[in-house]
């Protein structure tokens, strides 16, 4: 398996709080990697570092052997790492279709002059953006809701729309932050299928943060476990399940 992302000795401090301590982790091409851990373990912080929202206090991140330390979020996205957010961050007052169209921003070029003149190249680009957005809405199973404002979609559809929007950026890696939060069992199951399709149909590498252990065990080939900012275990679901430190972290110190 080829290595896609390499995190080396990543630490992140907020004042006196050590959100991440020397975390080293590799992400392989084409895998679904789960990231679990109790609340406040640093999972989202790791995602924020990975997508350029935070700069690590120390350590290095490489994507395809190029350091992406100090890159801005829009630069990271252009490299091919897209994400969704734990608390859905759609453009609430734009339609579902427009949300996905915004996702095409980084892969298109029309500027002010193109917009004003609306020449052949700009028109073609706009048409392509629209077509791709429609296609992605269909792929995510919300084609019928394209004209609705994002905030009017149901919770499950908003999660799907966020994935469609991220896909519009043509990513190689998709980082999903608690995609199943607040979903009922039926929705969880369709979400699981959707994530599998991301990898099997689109060939993406997927990173998932999730609290639902059942979902993550059935979905991921590899799981990394964070606790108090430290990577305490990584491996296959079976390995992780029987790891003493993981059990201790989840059930409390004495249970190991």
């Amino acid at each position: 398996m080829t290595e896609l992302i390499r995190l080396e000795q990543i630490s992140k401090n907020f004042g006196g709080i050590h959100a991440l301590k020397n975390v080293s982790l590799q992400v392989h091409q084409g895998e679904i990697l789960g990231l679990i851990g109790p609340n406040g373990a640093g999972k989202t912080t790791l995602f924020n570092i990975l997508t350029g929202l935070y700069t690590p206090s120390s350590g290095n991140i490489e994507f395809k052997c190029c350091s992406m330390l100090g890159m801005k979020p829009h630069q990271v996205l252009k490299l091919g790492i897209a994400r969704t957010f734990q608390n859905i961050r759609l453009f609430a007052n734009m339609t579902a279709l427009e949300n996905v169209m915004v996702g095409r921003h980084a892969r298109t070029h029309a500027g002010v002059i193109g917009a004003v003149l609306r020449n052949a190249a700009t028109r073609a680009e706009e048409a392509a953006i629209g077509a791709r957005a429609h296609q992605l809405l269909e792929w995510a199973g919300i084609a019928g809701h394209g004209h609705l404002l994002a905030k009017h979609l149901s919770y499950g559809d908003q999660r799907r729309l966020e994935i469609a929007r991220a896909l519009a950026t043509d990513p190689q890696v998709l980082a999903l932050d608690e995609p199943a939060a607040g979903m009922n069992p039926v929705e969880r199951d369709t979400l699981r299928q959707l994530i599998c399709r991301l990898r099997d149909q689109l060939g993406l590498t997927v990173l998932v943060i999730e609290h639902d252990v059942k979902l993550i065990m059935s979905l991921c080939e590899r799981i990394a476990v964070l606790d108090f900012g430290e990577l305490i275990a990584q491996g296959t679901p079976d390995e992780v399940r029987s790891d003493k430190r993981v059990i201790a972290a989840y059930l409390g110190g004495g249970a190991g």
Partner: protein
Amino acid sequence: MSRSKRQVWLTFIALGAMLALLPFVVDFGLGRYWVRIMDLALLYVMLALGLNIVVGYAGLLDLGYIAFYAVGAYCYALLSSPQFGLHLPFWAVLPIGAAVAGLFGILLGAPTLRLRGDYLAIVTLGFGEIIRIFLNNLNAPVNITNGPQGINQIDPVSLLGMSLGKTHQLFGITLSAPHQYYYLFLLLTLLVVFVSMRLQDSRIGRAWAAIREDEVAAEAMGINVRNIKLLAFAMGATFGGLAGGLFAGFQGFISPESFNLMESIMILCMIVLGGMGNIPGVILGALLLTILPEALRYTGDLQRAWLGHVVVDPSDLRMLLFGMALILVMLFRPAGLLPSRQRKRELVAEGDVAVQEQANVYDTRR
């Protein structure tokens, strides 16, 4: 919508004819003074549309917008008046003024990139005042702006060797100065409207909307927030500079007094009152807020006619009615008189709740 193309064209032609005849009708009915007010109203439409890009599209609350109007006006004034003895032609001065204003937009926008909401408003307010105070004090040690006295005898706009400051006969029609300015301003206003419309419905327009909605998500979706914000500041400032240059040529005299904070707030009011982000709404707001205060001047005469003396000074009454109108609009049409569809939905909550409920019911059934 199944309106035929012919109908659309007919509407356009009718509207064009109406706009072309309007100054003559107004001149005949209300007098030359009102044609001048129409000219000013068009300038305010341009200004409001420029600020609409910054506030309405990109959601950046700018309270110092009048500074760009001032920059445009002073550029024009310095380059074609006896102040430096320069008399560059109109077609050169106007773009220079707009470009310099755009540059100032970037200069003043750059330090505010990290600020949002109230903090951005306070800093831009400060910048607006700094520009005005600069203009007020740049008469010593080297006299550049002539300080509080302002710049006088600015060349009137001159097109194709024809000065718009004088009355002309064209095809047997007598065109006074305000008439000629009206047509020039109308053309440029239409240009600004056109550019605004095209920008709104484009990749750039979507990026502005995305930043307005959620800056973090916009950045994570690959939008270079810094550049797109600066672009909004620059575009808005360019329109402001354009209007400023026209104002200087039209008035023939400018002083720092014309560019105070009240003006910035007035333009913001036009946008808010008319409907932020919606071009027809912004135009309506700008027209109302320039024409109504002028119309209220007549209340003095009315009072004298009915009551024998002036009970309430018209200028006091103006502010009173103005404040009341704003309160009423905010109470009954919080999204503005002609809100954009988006803004309307943002501010109306009941519908949202119902739709969301229904979606959830639908979800659990599935």
